[in-house]
């Protein structure tokens, strides 16, 4: 490279590089440094020790939150895939008219343009004691008075998060299914397989990359969520992000919050790299 091209390459690359350094690298380094500090009333002092990480492992409170978060994120991803796959399949293979297909696709994706908070809040109004569900059950005579069992529990959280993040499941699955040439499905039928065997042996394996991508996104997004627990999660609904927020807020224990944030980061990166490997296995098949 001549000096000129070097300078030019540098100029082109510098804004994103600068962005990454200022907004990713620096904050994470600060977090890392904080995570070794020590909490000392009323604030915290610089130190280099692993006490915060030890607390995370030994105090069951944190492990519980972590497991609960994993469980919720897992349930959200599973329910999202159960709902999204048949929907995307229906759109790609059963809806003939392109206009109708686009409309039904947008019906799922368009809510992404609506504020996240608003969408999560919708479920509070549906499930609450004054909500639509209760008034429906009362008007049909199933209930005598409003029940509070629908809101403030894990089911409400899974429901809300599934609703909020399902577009991220539908989009990659739809894209993967749409990429399958119709002639492959016809060839399978032609070679003697029925509709279900064709799905199992051709359609499903060829759309798995979409499922993995959708699963990863939905899982990671719900894993880091802290609004749904806050709105509909109730007293024992706190997830990791809520605990981190409280460590930086009310609890005023930044070192512990930093350690927890880093644990979370490592977990998410781990999940992404595993799914990336799976996806790569399936790639190069449909080119």
């Amino acid at each position, binding site marked *: 490279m001549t000096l000129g091209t070097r300078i030019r390459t540098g100029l082109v690359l510098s804004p994103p590089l600068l962005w990454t350094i200022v907004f990713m690298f620096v904050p994470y380094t600060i977090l890392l440094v904080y995570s070794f500090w020590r909490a000392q009333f009323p604030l915290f002092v610089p130190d280099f020790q692993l006490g915060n990480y030890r607390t995370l492992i030994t105090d069951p409170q944190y492990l519980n939150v972590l497991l609960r978060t994993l469980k919720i994120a897992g349930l959200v991803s599973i329910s999202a895939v159960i709902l999204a796959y048949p929907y995307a399949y229906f759109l790609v293979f059963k809806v003939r008219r392109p206009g109708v297909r686009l409309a039904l696709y947008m019906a799922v994706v368009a809510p992404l343009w609506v504020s996240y908070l608003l969408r999560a809040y919708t479920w509070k109004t549906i499930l609450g004691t004054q909500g639509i569900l209760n008034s429906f059950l009362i008007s049909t005579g199933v209930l005598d008075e409003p029940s509070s069992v629908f809101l403030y529990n894990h089911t409400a959280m899974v429901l809300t998060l599934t609703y909020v993040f399902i577009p991220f499941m539908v989009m990659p699955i739809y894209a993967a299914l749409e990429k399958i*040439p119709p*002639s*492959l499905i*016809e*060839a*399978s*039928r*032609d*070679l*003697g*397989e*029925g509709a279900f*065997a064709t799905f199992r*042996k*051709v359609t499903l*394996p*060829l759309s798995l990359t979409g499922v993995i991508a959708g699963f990863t996104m939905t899982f990671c997004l719900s894993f880091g969520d802290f609004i749904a627990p806050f709105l509909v999660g109730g007293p024992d609904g706190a997830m990791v992000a809520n605990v981190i927020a409280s460590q930086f807020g009310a609890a005023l224990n930044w070192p512990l919050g930093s350690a927890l944030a880093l644990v979370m980061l490592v977990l998410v990166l781990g999940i992404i790299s595993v799914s990336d490997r799976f996806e790569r296995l*399936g790639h*190069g*098949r*449909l*080119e």
Partner: protein
Amino acid sequence: MSEIVRIESVTKQWGHVVGVDDVSLAVKTGEFVTLLGPSGCGKSTLLRMIGGFEDPTKGSIWLDGQNVTHLPPNRRDVNVVFQDYALFPHMSVGKNVGYGLKFTDEPRNQVATKAREALDLVGLSDKYDAMPSQLSGGQRQRVALARALVRRPKVLLLDEPLSALDANLREAMQVELRHLHQKVGLTFIMVTHDQDEALAMADRVLVMRNGRVVQDGTPDDLYDRPASAYVADFVGSTNMFRSAVVDGHVQLHDHVLELPERLKTCREGQFGFRPEKVRIVGSGEGGANRITGQLNELLYHGSTARLVIGEGPNAIIVSHMLQDHSGRSALPQLGEDVTVEIAADTLMRFEPEAGE
């Protein structure tokens, strides 16, 4: 020979769009039939109805005596070689070829053996473990063939199987397909829009137009005795002209041509002759059915040359074989007068077609 496929007045419509319009046809066991026609004439639709991918709007389809009109593809004893090959990208070549054998209760090792045999048949036994993405276009084509043949279907359907290959490979595959047909003794029905391919490969050609079969015959029927001006023009090329018939003669521009005996008594109509059947003769020679005109264009193709004699709408096209060693130097020069003979028995007459 017995009849293997029978199609009875089959029509396929989508709303107002007519894909196939009242086609009837019978194919004998072991025949190699091609469906030939321009884009959009309904060739693929007809083939897909035989395969079970389209439901006929009207009519019925019979396969070896059984009515299969509304049976799904997996319950018909036919197999398709798809235009884009449709190999399963997530399975090895061997798994692709063995795909259709699993459910016909073959023992497991038999599946592999049969798949290998089928690959052997198309000369790809060493690619058993390769993935389709690692193969060339011609090799994929062969795998698709092996996969369809391994099930020994009653009828093999091929939808423009060679159109994705380049010219050289295509010609080699034509020969190979022909050999394969003789070797396996199955019935082949092939779609093509390439007339050379149709003539070279088939025992029988069905020319289609706007969803209908306009001629059904052997390749030489089609070429020598085209049923209509449309077929004459689509299969090979033809010099066309209209003329009245006077005393057994027709008029081609300002020349008078004698008709053969079989056409002497016919009425006015459309006439034509093949550029290949025209003979260049010395200008001095006398004789019947001679035309002299100026050579206005000459396209040299090596073994043949195409000459345009006369001008504008009066021009006739002559295709001249370059035999011996004379080559290009024996050809007349541009601007020279050239005399050609259009022998009476090479003249063809066409009935006016409906709607023209």
